[in-house]
């Protein structure tokens, strides 16, 4: 065994150990799995947004070549459970969601019938032979219309289509509004998005001869899927094995329970054969959860010097036709709890309504609620600066939570706590990196020449790694906040980490190994990381909410320390000295101040398994497991800045520069950290400038049904992103790490919108809703020029 060459690993920009596999096309995804005698499932989806199902005629489909089974929702009723949400905020009315619609469809894309056939092509042929008699009903797709009197009603048990009303706040907003110099109000739309993964969803369920069932699924949360599938299909959980192989992106969309994930296991058992389903891109647009889809109404009660005295937020969160997995928590706790952003606003009043509409269910998408919350806070604070004609930087400084205020409980509210931060520090770094004053001068100078440039800024904070477990119970979140890690050192000294986190391209095989390598002081090449198999990995909650390093990484850290503690006991026994006399450094157990020859980690590992010289009462072996439950959540923060030029003739936005300064606590791997920022910022730019799901307001038809209509930005569409970090360690975990995965998609939308609005300010434009597409910007300019907007 080689000794470590470079310690510490934490802080080193190591390339992903996974790169070679992925870049050379040797990743193994669910769709790569082909099993003997495998059958293929295809789904007939509703062409209507809202309709009664009068009859499903399967006779011709059942008679078609190669078809083994064709079923309607009525055929499945009572045989398979309904899809239940996993996060049910207290007081939420939950609609029933059959796996396959029985008598009524509520969105375009909902499952109506299914075919299992010997090949996918034959299954598709048979789908075309199914005849469904629908009676269409009026549909509603817009959250502001769905709550109105007389709107089409989706579920009998949910009057006015409102599943939850959530209130949060502190202080006295009304009083603040009375005492303010003025109240500034704005209404903003957080555009509906599709979490576009390179790999669409897929699933293979394989019944085994021993009565067990193996389910291959690209899951961010394999152990959660094991539980949900077992509970809903009615199969013993201990006989179910969930394997998540390589995953081509998740972004939140692969952590929910979908019909196909229940149908394949059910059908595989029924037909005693492996059953596979994979999703086309068009299906993905109409069946995998969407993101965002809010309308917010905001009031800011301010003094003329820019001090915010109070804030009021009303959110309408469109969650689609049913409550998806986490849907009651997204527009509520995850959004409006964060409405005050990085600012000290003592008087806050927020109300959020969770609204059902005839659209694809909406659930987590990179940041889930925090991008919406930051967009509220940032658009509001920028509006304050604009209305008062103050420098947006100065208004932010005036209201920032100060470093001495941490831990900070915004508006003295019930549950939100920011553990640490230094916003002013991030701001100063960002201003310097961006060259703020020079840029503003240049912008002003070029405006006189008819060039429209703009500077945008956004600050953000949020909370990562939902925990501790006991507190999650209060919000109705039916899972824990811990993560497990098993660190197993074999008799040669080779280390295997079994982690309940789940990489979907994140590079956990590198970052988790870096954490363990530092504690164990072994070369990273001697450490393997195992994830994504419920039979190999003891337990876990998976990867979401930027929790993998803060919770999963801390779990690996704590467990590795336990390994060292036990190894130290063994070393002391081998060296015949007291345990306290043994020091462990550079992979050697030594007795400082003596000439006793040190012992290597691998020699101690060997002894752990030979067992001859263990201290009394110590078990052989070197294998530890931790279920790490954090005491609190880390709050990442940051300041992003953008510089843009708008062509007023075409409305095209050219992004000239983008600077991101993020404080995510201790950085484990700066290369992967910057990669997370890059990816998140690109998705944030996508929301700000490109992406929007559209539905026809009358028919409820999905108008962005493919990537021909739904604009995902290309590489050429995004700028070089200059990412750097400030490290304010989180006091909530032993590494000091906070989450990073969602930072970019939280900060970038308001940052980009502010930059464009600044560029458009000579026209008197103060608001354009996302996405700021060229036609939309052009229309806003025309509107302003004709004076209609003034």
């Amino acid at each position, binding site marked *: 065994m080689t000794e470590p060459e470079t310690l510490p690993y934490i802080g080193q920009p190591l390339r992903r150990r996974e790169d070679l596999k992925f870049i050379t096309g040797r990743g193994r995804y669910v769709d790569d799995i082909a099993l003997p005698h495998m059958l293929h499932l295809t789904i007939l989806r509703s062409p209507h947004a809202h309709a009664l199902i009068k009859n499903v005629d399967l006779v011709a489909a059942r008679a078609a070549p190669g078809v083994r089974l064709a079923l309607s929702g009525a055929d499945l009723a009572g045989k398979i459970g309904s899809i239940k949400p996993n996060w049910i905020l207290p007081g939420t009315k939950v609609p029933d969601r059959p796996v396959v619609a029985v008598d009524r469809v509520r969105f375009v894309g909902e499952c109506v019938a299914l075919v299992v056939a010997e090949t*996918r*092509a034959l299954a*598709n*042929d048979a789908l*075309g032979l199914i005849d469904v008699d629908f009676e269409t009903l009026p549909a509603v797709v817009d959250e502001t219309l769905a709550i109105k009197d007389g709107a089409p009603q989706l579920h009998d048990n949910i009057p006015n289509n409102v599943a939850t009303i959530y209130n949060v706040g502190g202080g006295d907003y009304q009083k603040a509004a009375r005492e303010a110099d003025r109240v500034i109000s704005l209404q903003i739309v957080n555009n509906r998005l599709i979490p576009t993964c390179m790999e669409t969803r897929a699933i293979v369920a394989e019944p085994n001869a021993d009565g067990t069932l193996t389910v291959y699924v690209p899951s961010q949360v394999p152990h959660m899927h094991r539980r949900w599938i077992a509970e809903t299909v009615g199969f013993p959980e201990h006989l179910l094995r969930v394997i998540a192989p390589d995953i081509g992106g998740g972004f939140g969309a692969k952590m929910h329970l979908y019909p196909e994930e229940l149908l394949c296991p059910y059908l595989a058992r029924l037909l005693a054969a492996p059953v596979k389903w994979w999703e*086309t891109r*068009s299906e993905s647009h109409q069946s995998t959860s969407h993101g965002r889809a809010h309308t917010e109404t905001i009031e800011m009660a301010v003094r003329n010097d820019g001090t915010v005295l109070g804030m009021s937020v009303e959110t309408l969160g469109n969650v689609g036709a049913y409550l998806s997995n986490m849907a009651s928590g997204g527009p509520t706790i995850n959004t409006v709890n964060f409405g005050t952003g990085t600012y000290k606003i003592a008087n806050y009043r927020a109300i959020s309504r969770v609204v059902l509409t005839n659209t694809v269910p909406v659930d987590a998408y990179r940041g889930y609620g925090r991008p919406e919350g930051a967009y509220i806070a940032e658009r509001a604070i920028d509006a304050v600066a604009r209305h008062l004609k103050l420098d947006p930087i100065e208004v932010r400084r005036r209201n920032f939570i100060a470093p001495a205020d941490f831990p900070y409980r915004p508006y003295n509210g019930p549950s939100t706590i920011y553990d640490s931060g230094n916003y002013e520090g991030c701001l100063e770094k960002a201003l310097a990196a961006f060259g703020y004053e020079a840029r503003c001068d240049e912008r002003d100078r070029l405006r006189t020449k008819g060039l429209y440039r703009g500077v945008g800024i956004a600050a953000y904070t949020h909370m990562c790694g939902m925990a501790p477990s006991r507190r999650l119970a209060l919000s109705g979140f039916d899972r824990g906040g811990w993560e497990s890690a098993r660190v197993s050192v074999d008799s040669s000294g080779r280390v295997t980490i079994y982690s309940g986190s789940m990489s979907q391209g994140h590079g956990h095989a590198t970052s988790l190994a870096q954490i363990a390598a530092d504690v164990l002081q072994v070369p990273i090449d001697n450490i393997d990381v195992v994830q994504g198999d419920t039979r190999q990995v003891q337990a876990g909650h998976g990867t979401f909410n930027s929790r993998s390093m803060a919770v999963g990484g801390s779990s690996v850290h704590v467990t590795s320390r336990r390994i060292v503690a036990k190894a130290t006991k063994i070393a002391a026994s081998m060296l015949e000295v007291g345990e306290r006399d043994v020091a462990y450094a550079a992979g050697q157990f030594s007795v400082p101040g003596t000439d006793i020859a040190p012992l290597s980690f691998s020699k101690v590992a060997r002894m752990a398994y030979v067992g001859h010289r263990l201290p009394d009462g110590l078990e052989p072996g070197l294998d530890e497991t931790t279920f790490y439950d954090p005491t609190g959540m880390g709050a990442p923060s940051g300041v992003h800045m953008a510089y843009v030029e708008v062509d007023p*003739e*075409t*409305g*095209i936005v050219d992004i000239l520069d983008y600077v991101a300064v993020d404080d995510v606590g201790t950085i484990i791997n700066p290369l992967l950290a910057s990669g997370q920022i890059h990816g998140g910022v690109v998705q944030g730019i996508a929301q700000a400038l*490109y992406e929007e799901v*559209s539905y026809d307001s009358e028919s409820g038809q999905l*108008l962005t049904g493919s*990537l*021909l*209509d*739904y*604009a*995902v*930005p290309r590489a050429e*569409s995004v700028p070089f992103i200059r990412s750097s970090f400030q490290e304010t360690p989180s006091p909530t975990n032993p590494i000091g790490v906070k989450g990073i995965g969602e930072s970019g998609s939280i900060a970038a939308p308001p940052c980009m919108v502010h930059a464009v609005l600044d560029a458009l300010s000579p026209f008197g434009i103060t608001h354009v809703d996302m996405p700021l*597409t*060229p*036609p939309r910007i*052009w*229309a806003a300019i*025309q509107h302003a020029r004709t004076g209609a907007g003034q």
Partner: protein
Amino acid sequence: MTPASFDYVRVASLSDAIALIAADPDNAKLLAGGHTLIPTLKLRLASPALLVDIGGIAEMKGIEVGDNIRIGALTTHAQLLASARLHEALPIFRQAASLIADPQVRNRGTIGGSLANADPAADWPAIVLALNAELEIVGPGGRRRMAAKDFFVDIMTTALNADDILLAIHIAAPRPGTLSRYRKIHHPASGYAVVGVAVALSRQSGLVSHAEIGITGAASRAFTAEAARDFLIGKSLSVETIKQAALLASEEAECLSDRYASADYRKHLIKTELARALVSFEEV
């Protein structure tokens, strides 16, 4: 999705292709680059009984640049982009090809397929219009040539009969000093033109002696901006002339509105992009 089942024949000669298509014109489809046809089949928006793969017909391939220019219908976007001789004669080809989709698509998609498909937002229709190209067509009755301006009829509709095959594009050798430019504002998702403006123009003694303007993306079919063209003839490209020509072009277009862009926006883009194309000639 997977396509419905169909028969597939790869023909070696033009006459075989003609014969197969003529036998059942309504149920047979020609397969060239396949970049529109295959997705259409996969989505089951079409389910022809027979696909006639014409990819092996030598006569339909290649770029000849001599006294005149002949481009086989099967020439890929990538080949049009790469051809040095074509670039020398008419740089607009490389310029336009570089704005079409991405390298993978350019490696397979063909100019003939693009023209025959007549997507109202495709790029090549504007180019062939601006260059006054002639399209060589073969059918059961033999060969004929048609001016590009007579070829595009409506959305996805050309003057081709169901049993016709587009064989080649012919372009007269450009006059010395001919300037050509294609400007395109692309749709952020599809990459197709929201508006594309192709201009070919030559001058004598500083005055425009010949001009042609092809516009795509804006209307239900690619068209030539005739009023703007006529206005330009005999004038110098002054700021005022350019402005007036751009206005004329935008006014003569019957623009489409869709979810992404309004007709007004498209009209404005015609004006902006034509003006910018003409200004770029002044900068040459």
